[in-house]
């Protein structure tokens, strides 16, 4: 599989995402935000960082980039799309994922290792999180719907929801399941050198979705 990792002005985790996909057994290349042509790619990552300076709201400007227009069409055709941190915010702003990310409840930028529970399997993953605007929010009826349809992908384990996310939600998918966004950074947990390789599981999950 060949993955394209978007690169906006202000992205900062795109190289780690490329590295992670190579470790997970795939190929990956960077896609500049002005590119519109995603032909030849089997999947797309919208990486972490501070796209366009996070002006207005995190992710609000990036959604109008040429590359994101192409990603919307790619996702509509069933292609796998993974949004990490700022990428999750961009996908929510673009309407490709439900909900929105707000300022952390305690107003602090949180940077620490968190434990996630994978919905369905109950697998426990240890992955770093680093964000100031990671409080997942959606109206209650929408949250009920997401839970009923199995669109909650990851929750923070007890005691690990440090941003105040509704129902401990750390990551969600679209209804079809081919678009996934999460706040913690699986691309920083792929090498034993940094303490955990649990992030690989997230990349392997996405590789299992074929366009």
């Amino acid at each position: 599989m060949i993955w394209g990792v978007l690169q906006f002005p202000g992205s900062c985790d795109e190289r780690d995402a490329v590295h992670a996909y190579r470790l997970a057994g795939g190929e990956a290349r960077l896609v500049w935000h002005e590119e519109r042509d995603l032909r030849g790619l089997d999947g797309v990552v919208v990486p972490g960082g501070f796209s366009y300076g996070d002006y207005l709201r995190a992710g609000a400007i990036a959604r109008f980039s040429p590359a994101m227009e192409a990603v919307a069409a790619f996702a509509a055709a069933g292609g796998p799309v993974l949004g990490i941190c700022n990428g999750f915010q961009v996908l929510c702003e673009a309407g490709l994922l439900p909900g929105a990310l707000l300022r952390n409840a305690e107003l602090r930028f949180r940077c620490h290792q968190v434990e996630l529970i994978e919905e369905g399997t109950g697998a426990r993953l240890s992955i770093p999180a680093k964000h100031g605007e990671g409080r997942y929010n959606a109206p209650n009826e929408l949250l009920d719907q997401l839970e009923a349809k199995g669109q909650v992908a990851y929750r923070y384990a007890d005691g690990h929801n440090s941003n105040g996310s509704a129902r401990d939600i750390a990551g969600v998918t679209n209804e079809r399941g081919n678009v996934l966004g999460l706040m913690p950074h699986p691309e920083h947990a792929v090498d034993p050198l940094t303490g955990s390789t649990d992030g690989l599981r997230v990349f392997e999950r996405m590789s299992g979705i074929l366009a």
Partner: protein
Amino acid sequence: MAKARVLIRPKEGILDPQGKAVERALPALGFEGVEHVRVGRMVELEAEDPAQLGELCEKLLANPLIEDYEIQQL
């Protein structure tokens, strides 16, 4: 060109930690009896066609899922 001002604030019922932080800081400065502080943002602009402003707010200036907006024509 028509001048306008757009006020954007967190929707009612959504926790606004910035507003809370301001509210908690006030008594320390001797300002008692101030509550329900909400912090939002204000955008000033000039538009050729003010009829576009609603759509512009819905699509970019505000996120209708979490924010309310109010357009003031100046």
